[in-house]
């Protein structure tokens, strides 16, 4: 199986190590990884959330073209995955519509490991109390886990992030008191509503007091929370966590 690794704009420049970790992990799990040079720099979500989709109409087509030779696309970001999966066809309008509709399936990193590869065990060991921070779009748009709002009778859900974390021996998973409260990043929101956004970030960090690590499928949430962190747990993306488990003695 050949997968295309797509590293979104902010990971590319602000957290390249996350992309490299995802690449290494996928290869060690026996997957052939392609990283196309001509992949567009951004999936277009920032423009759509800002009310300016017309600035991004060509990105879905460009993306579909650069990944046309792979079986699946994997992203170390659930939010971008949700955007591509659910909004790219509409965003493309009539530009490269055929190519976009035939584009390979996009997977969020842990979703691909858990559901795509059927990963159930990992070598290595990590003795740590790990807090899970579910990104909002992964949770409520990709369906990675069960949103806390859901009542009885909601469709069954799987949580691939918790699943993959649970594969690592020695890890104790800790849930925050408000299990899936937003970290306050929200893309453009952090720029247009800086005060509310900062308070949300601080509160979210405080919710993880006492854990060793906070892990998320969304590096954007982690980068946001890092802005307000002085002490406390390390913030780690899923590819980095899995890599550190693979590397552990």
């Amino acid at each position: 199986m050949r997968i295309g690794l797509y590293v979104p704009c902010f990971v590319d420049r602000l957290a390249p190590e996350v992309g490299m970790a995802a690449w290494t992990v996928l290869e060690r799990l026996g997957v052939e990884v392609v990283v196309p040079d001509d992949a567009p720099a951004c999936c277009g979500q920032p423009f759509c959330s800002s009310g300016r989709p017309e600035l991004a109409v060509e990105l879905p087509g460009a993306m579909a073209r650069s990944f046309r030779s792979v079986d699946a696309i994997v992203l170390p970001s659930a939010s971008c995955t949700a955007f591509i999966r659910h909004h790219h066809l509409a965003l493309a309008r009539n530009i490269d519509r055929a190519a976009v509709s035939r584009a390979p399936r996009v997977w969020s990193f842990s979703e691909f490991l858990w559901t795509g590869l059927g990963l159930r065990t990992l070598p290595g060991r990590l003795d740590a109390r790990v807090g899970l921070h579910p990104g909002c779009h992964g949770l409520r748009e990709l369906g990675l886990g069960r949103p806390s709002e859901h009542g009885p009778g909601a469709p069954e859900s799987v949580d691939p992030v918790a699943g993959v974390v649970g594969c690592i021996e020695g890890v104790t998973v800790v849930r925050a008191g408000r299990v899936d409260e937003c970290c306050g990043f929200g893309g453009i929101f952090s720029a247009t509503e800086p005060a509310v956004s900062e308070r949300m970030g601080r509160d979210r960090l405080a919710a993880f007091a006492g854990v060793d690590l906070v892990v998320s499928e969304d590096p954007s949430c982690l980068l946001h929370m890092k802005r307000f962190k002085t002490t406390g747990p390390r913030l780690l993306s899923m590819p980095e966590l899995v890599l550190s488990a693979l590397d552990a003695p």
Partner: protein
Amino acid sequence: MSRVPHPRAARHLLADLARTSWHDKAVWHVRRKRDAAAAEVSDWEALREHARAVRRHGLDHLDELVADLARNAARHGVVVHWAPRAADLRQVVGQLLTDRGVTRVVKSKSMLTEECGLNPHLAALGIEVADTDLGERIVQLRGEAPSHIVMPAIHLERTEVGRTFHTHLGTEAGESDPTRLTRAARRDLRQHFLHAQAGITGVNFAVAEDGALVVCTNEGNADLGAQLPPLHIACMGIDKVIPRRADLPVFLRLLARSATGQPITAYTSIFRGPRPGAELHLVIVDNGRSELLGDPDLRAALTCIRCGACLNTCPVYRRSGGHSYGESVLPGPIGAVLGAARSPDTHGDLAHASSLCGSCREVCPVGVPLPEQLRVLRERAAGARPWWERVGLRVMAHVLADPVRAERWGDWLARVSGWLPARMPRGLPQPKRDSFRRLARARKRHLD
């Protein structure tokens, strides 16, 4: 535009760290009560889906349903009035009251009358209006607007209520015991009920097939207001109509559980017609709802049953407070949608008062797609955004359109970010000198 934009208005509450924490916790507590109440209903999600379907069906047939409602209510002696705009509601109600020489009115909670500015209008006519919902009474005495749909005074601590009551109701200075304060409010309100010449209520649901008007309260204040005076004026938006009586239990179950976590509101009264010797008037208000109905992207907002669950779950509302949304609209996600939809010029910025986390859509008992609607509203108000945002997005689009250009700009940004003044927004992440793409090229070369 005289309104303070949301980001700035939000700072009012946020400036007080402890108060923000307390407000956030108080409102979140209600969200948790809602979760517990939902968990007790074995088919909660099916109930939501059913309610959504009934409400969407209701929108598709709104004209017929409202006509049926008016006809069936009139059959039972209800006098029906039509109010296309807010001014018409003010005029109709003002006329009804002045024609009968009414000078004292009791009013139970009605967000519609807030929307239409009824209280100031009646005051100008020399009519004294006492709001009788306890929370609404508190904010009325303070000269404030409600900060929540269901809990109008949720932004106040009990000591503040104590001070307000000390000033207006003569309770002892320093009294902040909730029970004693409530008793004082009750004594005062009892006098208003006894001397009122008319009662104004809202309507939670109006049943088209039999003309029944349903009013839900936890304090019984609507019942006293409707039953004691000889004139009852019920005010409703056209969106409150539901098709059949058989649909009512679906909404009663969802409303109270979603709003406060109760299985049902303490008082659920169904008015069919006037008492013998009394009058019952129904004012049916449009005030922009028909325009919203004709808007395919936003019309689902008309299915809202005003439970307030989207406020309680909203991480922005809980930290910015209800007053940050401006005083003429509902607060929270539903208020942002309705406010930005109806008054894009003055309230368009509210579409940005959300991180688009999606919790509101999942908690909504009728599944209003609030985040999607906020996105649409952002598109519509894009031209009114601040210049730096518009320019910034254009530059960003240009840069990101081409991966090579993106890398060049990224390199430049990584170089200059070290020189940026210390007064930049707190701790923005530092761009790395080597992008993933550069590292990836090196790795590929190495592998080759």
